């Protein structure tokens, strides 16, 4: 399995690229020009913190006691990668990049207004209380997977529903930006957002295809055979669903708002990638098309909900990641097929309601766990160190206030170096 090992080195680097720089570009372009650096720094900062937390106790807390059937795993068993074989390092590093991007995804819900220090305190606590436990329950043989065998190939629950719920909670606890929704807060550079979406798509092949788990585990012919067949399926499903979702988003906004937009294309790509994340190993090409179309259209409609409900989820973490994650996770219950690598028939393939029930329980488990604990963390931060920069700094631009920098030079500087 030398080929698999080499592939995982590449896949892990690809997923790293999804956070720095892909997600930071995708998000950064959507903010106003006075807060793009802070937006990008939230992704970079999250990656730094997640890395240290992961090698210290994250790996142990998620995967340290595989199959113990408990809600959590002991964070100290493998503390600091104690007793982890070097040959196992790359599998650990692969999961590290997942934890980092999940935390970074949340930042879009609170763009333009949060103190960088508060964000850097939130990330490690959230990973410890929400991310690693969910990962343990879904992938690490914890309590959930002991009771409901949900299919989540690459993180529909662990990554996207998880980040989406956390984003919703943060948007509610942190509150609206000054002037929202009356004042127009247009994306300042959609070319950055398009580049970011394209790089996310590219990196997602590492994310999804790299998430293969070997059934036989013989490290020989059986694993090789599975690797040679399954990776093609997950690769193609990822591509097909993403293309379908982009088209569905564009068509939806063409019908509802009159124009197909570049932001719609970028958003549709991400919605499709999110929805095919849990399902890329569970469905055939038709399933991938259905999941892509439903995710693209539904997310395109869902992003308007925040205006009706009045919460400032600035860059639509809820509308894209929570909704897209739910679409992908729940549609497995309908369109998964035993002829796909996952080997489970959904409702449409004569498998009855069993699969749907398991998928629903995994989604609910994630929503409740993360919903409750994120509220606790967010409220605790609100009443201790506080979340918000002062209103004046927010209006003048968080980049200058939090980082003493500006992204773009509008006028030549006149200051003298002191």
């Amino acid at each position, binding site marked *: 399995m030398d080929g698999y090992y080499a592939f995982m080195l590449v896949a892990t680097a690809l997923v790293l690229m999804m956070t720095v720089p892909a997600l930071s570009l995708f998000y950064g372009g959507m903010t106003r020009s006075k807060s793009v650096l802070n937006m990008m720094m939230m992704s970079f900062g999250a990656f730094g913190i997640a890395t240290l937390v992961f090698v210290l106790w994250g790996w142990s807390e998620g995967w340290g006691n595989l199959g113990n059937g408990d809600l959590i795993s002991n964070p100290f068993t493998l503390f600091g990668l104690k007793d982890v074989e070097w040959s196992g390092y790359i599998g650990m590093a692969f999961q590290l990049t997942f934890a980092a991007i999940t935390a970074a995804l949340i930042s879009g819900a609170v763009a333009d207004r949060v103190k960088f220090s508060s964000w850097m305190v939130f990330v490690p606590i959230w990973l410890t209380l929400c991310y690693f436990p969910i990962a343990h329950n879904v992938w690490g043989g914890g309590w959930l997977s002991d009771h409901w065998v949900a299919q989540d190939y690459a993180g529909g629950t662990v990554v996207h529903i998880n980040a989406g719920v956390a984003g919703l909670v943060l948007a509610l606890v942190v509150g609206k930006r000054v002037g929202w929704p009356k004042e*127009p807060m*247009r994306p300042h550079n959609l070319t950055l957002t398009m580049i970011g979406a394209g790089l996310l798509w590219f990196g997602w092949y590492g994310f999804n295809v790299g998430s293969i788990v070997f059934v036989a585990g013989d490290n020989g012919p059986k694993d090789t055979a599975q690797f040679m067949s399954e990776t093609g399926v997950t690769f193609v499903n990822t591509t097909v669903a993403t293309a379908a979702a982009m088209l569905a988003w564009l068509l939806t906004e063409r019908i509802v708002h009159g124009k197909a*937009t570049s*932001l719609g294309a970028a958003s549709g790509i991400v919605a499709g990638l999110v929805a095919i994340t849990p399902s890329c190993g569970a469905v055939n090409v038709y399933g991938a098309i259905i999941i892509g179309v439903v995710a693209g259209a539904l997310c395109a409609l869902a*992003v*308007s909900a925040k205006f009706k409900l009045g919460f400032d989820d600035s860059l639509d973490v809820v509308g894209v990641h929570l909704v897209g994650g739910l679409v992908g996770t729940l549609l497995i219950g309908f369109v998964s097929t035993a002829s796909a690598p996952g080997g489970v028939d959904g409702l449409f393939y004569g498998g009855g309601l069993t699969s749907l029930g398991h998928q629903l329980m995994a989604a609910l488990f994630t929503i409740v766990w993360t919903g409750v604990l994120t509220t606790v963390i967010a409220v605790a931060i609100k009443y201790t160190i506080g979340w918000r920069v002062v209103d004046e700094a927010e209006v003048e631009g968080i980049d200058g206030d939090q980082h003493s920098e500006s992204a773009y030079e509008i006028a030549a500087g006149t200051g003298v170096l002191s």
Partner: protein
Amino acid sequence: MKLVTAVIKPHKWEDVREALETFGVTGMTVSEVSGYGRQKGHTEVYRGAEYDIALVPKIRIEIVIDDDDADDVVGLIVKTAQTGRIGDGKVWLSPVETVVRVRTGDRDSAAL
């Protein structure tokens, strides 16, 4: 002397410049500006959210000329920049007391 100020549609700027040059206007100051008149901006849609964009990009031209040429220049700009649609812009004249050429110190007509 008069100061001619014209605010016109950006895509008409090249035509106006050519016409003024042919007429004999030797210099001008041009800036990219934004504003709005009766047409009131436009609408943009991002992820389904509609934004009213009040300001429309325009080109502002400023020329100082002799009194005798003023009406011709104004007429020329109006004729060239006109599309007949809303948002074509405005041209106005204002009196100028004194003009000095910085290089030589020439004043008024000699400085034009």
